């Protein structure tokens, strides 16, 4: 049995736990942005589709998944709170109205499909369709604004970098969403969904370049920060993946395209993490080592995460295997 004394004495196995938690938190954020990202993207594409059957196909495709996907945001928030309480508190209270904008968008997006199913009259369904699209587009956009502000340490809610990162993230969700929808409803949804994805991925690349240009001006380290070898490699990989995504979508290899979108998402968040390190809240200059919780709770949290996250991963394997292959619009409850 491990004693409280030994758990308070030093980091578990002498591991660099603060850095690992920094990495974990960004991994959780990226997981959320990829998984719920394809739900958001599907919601944006929903707005570009016309028939009821197409709309229902989109709702059926995201139905079993979105709730589980969204929980990654809860886990991201919870772990940030648990590992870096001061960063959690300062960051969210500083971007007060923005946070509530994000939460409002998530409420709309989550509620809309549930409400849409309840009544079969046209006005009701049209209203909830609008809510679904608005929530699905606004959530990643505002999250991007938040991430942009966080990264450069902006005090206010609206900023150029925020808006550009917002567009970047929204386009990225459409990239994932198009691949996801081609995978889950290949027969119902029209070919042009694939075209939306291809446009979005090109737009994404342009937006990333724009983001990097602004960062080169805004960051204290300037261009030099961005010439970090890993960042350069990730940018090159992203360009390659963009091309790969387009080819995969044209050939109807939706799963490969979705994989490319996943790597793009994790790559983007890795770049964000590298730029920010070792700070966790650039606005106050607070670093990882200044804001990390004390050794005992950190060790306990590390044990909990090491035991629970593999379990969580297994739940997702079960869920996605149960719903592997296309999901027909008739599969509502």
């Amino acid at each position: 049995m491990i004693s409280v004394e030994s758990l308070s004495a030093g980091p578990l196995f002498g591991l660099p736990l603060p850095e690992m938690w920094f990495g974990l938190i960004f991994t959780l954020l990226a997981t959320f942005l990829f998984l719920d990202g394809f739900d958001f993207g599907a919601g944006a594409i929903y707005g570009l589709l016309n028939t009821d059957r197409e709309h229902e196909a989109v709702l059926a495709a995201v139905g079993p998944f979105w709730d589980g996907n969204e929980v990654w945001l809860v886990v991201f928030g919870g772990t940030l709170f648990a590992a870096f309480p001061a960063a959690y508190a300062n960051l969210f209270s500083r971007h007060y109205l923005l946070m509530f904008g994000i939460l409002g968008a998530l409420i709309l997006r989550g509620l809309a499909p549930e409400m849409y199913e309840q009544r079969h009259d046209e006005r009701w369904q049209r209203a909830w369709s609008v809510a679904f699209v608005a929530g699905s587009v606004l959530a990643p956009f505002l999250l991007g604004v938040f991430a942009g502000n966080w990264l450069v340490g902006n005090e206010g809610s609206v900023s150029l970098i925020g808006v550009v990162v917002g567009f970047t993230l929204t386009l990225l969700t459409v990239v994932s969403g198009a691949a996801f929808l081609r995978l889950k409803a290949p027969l119902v949804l029209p070919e042009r969904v694939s075209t939306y994805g291809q446009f979005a991925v090109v737009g994404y690349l342009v937006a990333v370049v724009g983001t990097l240009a602004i960062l080169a001006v805004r960051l204290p380290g300037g261009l030099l920060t961005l010439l970090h070898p890993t960042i350069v490699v990730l940018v090159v990989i992203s360009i390659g993946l963009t091309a790969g995504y387009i080819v995969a979508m044209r050939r109807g290899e939706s799963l490969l395209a979705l994989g490319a979108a996943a790597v793009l998402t994790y790559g983007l968040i890795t770049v964000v993490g590298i730029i920010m390190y070792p700070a966790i809240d650039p606005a106050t200059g607070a670093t990882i080592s200044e804001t990390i919780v004390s050794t005992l709770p950190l060790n306990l949290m590390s044990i909990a995460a090491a035991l629970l996250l593999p379990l969580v991963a297994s739940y997702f394997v079960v869920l996605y295997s149960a719903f592997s292959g296309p999901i027909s619009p008739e599969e509502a409850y």
Partner: protein
Amino acid sequence: MVDPLIASRLQFALTTTVHIIFPVMSMGLAPFLIYFTWKDIRTGEPVYEQLRRFWTKIFAISFVVGTVTGIVLEFEFGTNFAAFSIAAGELFGGPLAVEGMMAFMLEATFLGIFVFGRERVGDTLYFISSVAVGLGTWLSAVWILIANSWMQTPRGYELVTEGGQTVVKLVDPLAAYFNPRFGYMFVHMQNAAVESVALFMAGIAAYYVFKHHVREVDVDNVNFWETTLKIALVALLITAPFQVYQGDMYARSVAETQPQKFAAMEAVWETDSYVPEYLIAVPTNLDSITDPRAKELFGIGIPGGASWLASGGDPTAEIRGLNTFESQAPPVAIVFWAFRAMVGMGFWFILLSFWGGYRWYKGQLLNDGLLHKALMGSSLLGILAVELGWIVTEVGRQPWVIQDVMKTSEAVSPGLTGTEATISLVGFAVVYLALLGLYTYVITRVIRNGPPGREQLRERPDRTPMSDTSAAGGADDD
């Protein structure tokens, strides 16, 4: 503009008051759904598939609304109570993070299978999904109540000043997490959730049973409603007496560990022994009628009742008065009345369960119109009692956010402006009340539409027309 502290407190009160309804529904429905799923798979009787599908629909809607209203709460600690989050993050953040990983994930992933996957997975995985969802809802409560109970009876910590800020350091995790309040709170809350759902089910079922058997208006699937009523009544017979029995122990724990709250529950200002349990009390001075902290009360009470409650049977026991505490008293009238209304309802639910049980025993459950009306009128009272219980718990802890450690007034985010706080307060008031309205509307529609008819049920090899009529005995109802 509203003061940021007041606005933040109002906003948190509003968002939690609305949010708690949905976890009560999902946690309370969980054991019923596991039972219905089990019976559906094992017996193949149509009524169990109807029960499973109908109540799963209500569960799913409650869960979605619970998710969207609940995510807000997790971020509100950071947005509105940043000072609290920094000071207590070490003890408070951990349980929230573990709740997400251990409970919410389990719930949300298996819910996808449970709601949408009946045709895609086998019986075993489907049953496992129902258990996983149910277990997830209850594990959520474990971690959330660990966090909350620690704020009531903080243990296992030490106060350290770091850079001019006093923060809480975790020193003994077991003492902190299994603090004196946690066990009482968890049992009380979970039993309350099942009891509330039992009352909700019984109330709705009573309406249709009344319509069919008393009013003699033909109701579709009346067998479904009769079974619902009986199952709900069984659950009520178990949970209602237990809630009051356990609540008595809970109150004693409050008297021991949060004497200020207990004194507010009983409106005891001066330390006294042989304190009566007032059933009703009114301020003797008309000016103080709107004062939540009114002191001069005229009441009718049971002699020694409060002392008896505080000590576990000694009517002469001493109760420490509110005047002896250094901090200002909580809003006494609110705590006093919320406590009385909750306890009063608790006894009413026992009476209701015995009444229903007796009529059932006599074979008159389906024909007692007065009982049906009483059940209908009580269908939402369980949820109301839960709300009142939380008011006692949270208002009664004031002025402390962490009992005797941190005041609520020190917890608010330092940089928050009145304008921001007012905008979000108004926004949330609109959104949450709209959500509550929408939820009520949708649930009402689901109930009106009733369970899926026989013709919509799944095809299964063991369900022949013969067993269809013999098993449920109500095939000719619709």
